[in-house]
């Protein structure tokens, strides 16, 4: 547990330093799987959140009270293909390991606890430093869709207005792309 706290502390510290400025974000989200009718929560980091291509390690957890109780950890690649001053639209691909905890309660033939999932989807995200995001994703293995919506904080940004903290530049809109 102490190691976990230490890792989170280091991550938060590094994220707040100049080297990570505008290059890293952390977020949390809620999930709903339409087919399994399950509610979950997710955590993610985003590397290069303002670049066209972003990389996002993610974990999601669907709670035990659901019909499907599972934990998934993986890596997503996001490609922004449309952007305005207010939001981005992106496609994503995600691959990860899935631990289906309640597999033995399922009638699915060959249900097993350890799975490799691949998902594709589409998402929209804001441009602010604290930005919303919402994704609609399709799980190829289980043929299920879910929405994943939450907030993402970009380190190195300046508060709610989305201004830079850069010393060398005047205050300006936090641009998603430059």
């Amino acid at each position, binding site marked *: 547990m102490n190691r976990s706290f230490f890792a989170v502390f280091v991550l938060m510290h590094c994220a707040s330093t100049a080297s990570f400025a505008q290059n890293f974000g952390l977020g949390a989200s809620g999930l709903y799987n339409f087919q399994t009718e399950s509610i979950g929560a997710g955590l993610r980091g985003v590397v290069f959140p303002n670049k066209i291509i972003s990389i996002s390690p993610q974990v999601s957890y669907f709670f035990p009270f659901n019909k499907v109780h599972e934990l998934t950890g993986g890596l997503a690649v996001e490609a922004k293909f449309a952007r305005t001053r207010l939001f981005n*639209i992106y496609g994503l691909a995600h691959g990860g390991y899935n631990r289906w905890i309640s597999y033995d309660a399922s*009638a699915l033939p060959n249900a097993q606890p350890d799975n490799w999932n691949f998902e594709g989807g589409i998402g929209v995200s804001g441009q602010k430093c604290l930005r919303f995001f919402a994704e*609609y994703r399709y799980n190829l293995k*289980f*043929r299920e869709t879910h929405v994943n919506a939450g907030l993402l904080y970009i380190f190195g940004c300046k508060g709610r207005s989305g201004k830079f903290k850069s010393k060398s530049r005047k205050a300006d809109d936090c641009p998603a792309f430059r």
Partner: protein
Amino acid sequence: MKKFQDYTVFAFALIAGLMLFSCSKDRIEDRDELNEYQSPNAYLDSKKQPEQDFLIDTNGTGPIVGNQGTLIWGSKNCLQLPNGDTIAFPFNVKLVELYTPKDMIYYRMPTVSSSRILETEGEIRLRAFKDGTELSLRAGCAYKVTMPDSAPQMDYMRVFYGIENGSIVDWTDDLGSLGVTQLQNPFWESDSIGYTALIERLGWINCDRLAGTASGATLTFTSEVDDLTNVAIFAYLPATKTVMQAYNQSMGIIPNGTFTKIIAIAQDAGGNLFSFYNELTVNNSQAVDVTLSQTSDASLTSLLDGL
């Protein structure tokens, strides 16, 4: 802006495509309710061969003749009480005759010896009682038994004895393992009546020989519609007249290449009769999918008669 609109249209088209794409609720679909059955043992018991009871109250030349032609010669002096005491007249001899696969199935008496199939010409259960106390044969004594067969041909059939373990009877030709010293010829001799042998232990007796090997195939029985827990499943191997029974939905060992007839019998809570029949040539271990269908006593009897 035009470009953005194009992208947006594309994005929503992709979403619509995903929505239309075949989604699945398989992970949360309820297990289909399986049809449940009760044990068919009451039905099978109602159909099985009765145990014949012969009251022996005087000396004679014999033989005792069973309903199906079994002949028995024996002496009162060969019988003893559990404590070794001799007995006096009268006493009872009881006999069950199983000469067809139908009767072996009704009696749930497969012909398998430690997972190895037996080629069989028939089974009998021969017991003796004095005032309700089961008797045994004295050491060195034997009862002569003839099993009827209109065309006995084989001279290699051995006397197998049943080892009762609960409701399951295993077979052995090793009298020593039953605590009896083998003194008589362990083979059945064929004659114009059938097969004749000297029996050195009362109980279940079989005229057969080992036909299987220690390796072969195992059949497992599964069903997507029926709960097989209480279903009685049998196999009949015509080439060796072998009857097998599945325990815990599994049966073996069947030599590869064996033509096999599968029969499953069950009753529902209302007493309705259900059955399943299938024929296959067993070439390797495999799962047999069972789907029971309602039948009648006459139909099932006809099916078993035709094995």
